[in-house]
């Protein structure tokens, strides 16, 4: 069974939601990792949860990238270890340069908290390997700066992939389905290798039908299956 590590910073607030989802619901080994940790050995998948690390001062995620843990995290990213940044975790991955782009205020200028539909654009990543291209997941967003921007730099960046796009119930891409005004309805991207995923919707809040959706489980079940298949094959992750 893979070892999950939940990385948390001063101001993270979805760390226990992630723990509940991974440890209590999926029954996987899972530990909290404080941002001052300098060794991430033995971790098979890193989760960077949502929240307001460092109060979102300056720009969301801007200060967290100087935490000691970011160095070993960068090394894990290079080794191909799956890393998922959710909401503020996505903002931290972008600010630290592990993923391209930037975030600005939602076009509505409001904190948006609602259900969205997201379409799988790329099933060839550790987090989507049990899903099909075009499959739709129902997941909630909760953010003020979820408006993903890439365009000024877009032509200079080759090494990234779109994994999730906000869509309507039938998979159509339109402005109504886009809660933040994000470029091209982008809800989640990975690096070219696919092991570093950033996404604005919260899969850990879509784990129980009682709370509205179980779709978020599929992403974590994907990464568990991806890691397990590698371990069986005897390959280093």
């Amino acid at each position: 069974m893979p070892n999950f590590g939940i990385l948390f910073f001063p101001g993270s607030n979805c760390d226990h939601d992630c723990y509940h989802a991974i440890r209590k619901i999926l029954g996987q080994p899972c530990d909290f990792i404080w941002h001052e940790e300098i060794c991430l050995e033995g971790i098979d998948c890193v989760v960077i949860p949502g929240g307001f690390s460092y109060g979102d001062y300056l720009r969301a995620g801007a200060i967290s990238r100087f935490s000691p843990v970011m160095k070993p995290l960068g090394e894990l990213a290079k080794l191909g270890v799956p890393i998922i940044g959710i909401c503020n975790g996505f903002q931290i991955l972008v600010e630290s340069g592990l993923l391209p782009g930037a975030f600005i205020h939602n076009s509505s200028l409001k904190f948006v908290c609602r259900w969205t539909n997201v379409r799988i654009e790329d099933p060839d990543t550790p987090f989507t390997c049990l899903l099909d291209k075009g499959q739709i997941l129902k997941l909630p967003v909760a953010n003020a700066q979820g408006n993903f921007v890439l365009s000024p730099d877009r032509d200079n960046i080759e090494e990234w992939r779109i994994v999730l796009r906000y869509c309507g119930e039938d998979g159509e891409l339109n402005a109504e389905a886009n809660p933040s005004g994000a470029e091209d309805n982008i809800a989640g991207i990975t690096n070219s290798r696919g092991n570093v995923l950033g996404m604005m919707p919260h899969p850990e809040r879509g784990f129980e039908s009682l709370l509205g959706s179980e779709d978020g489980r599929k992403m974590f079940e994907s990464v568990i299956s991806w890691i397990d298949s590698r371990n069986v094959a005897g390959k280093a992750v």
Partner: protein
Amino acid sequence: MKRFSVKIEVKLKPVVLDPQGKAILNALSGLGFSGISNVRVGKVVELNMEGKSAEQVSQKAYEMCRKLLSNPVIEDSSVEVKEK
């Protein structure tokens, strides 16, 4: 060592849409101010710094912008240095 006051301005690049600027434009129009266009909102960071010359201090300030104060993907910065 001389003492300088430094004013650093961070603004969204012209190609990046500015939702705050747009909301302010709408609010100003609603208040009856007419003929307004292209409202952009930025940040100003002021600090004091010691250094050998204005040029050296300005270089350091631009380095701060690259490393922390701005996100170069979406923001431009400008620096103004005055000897105190």
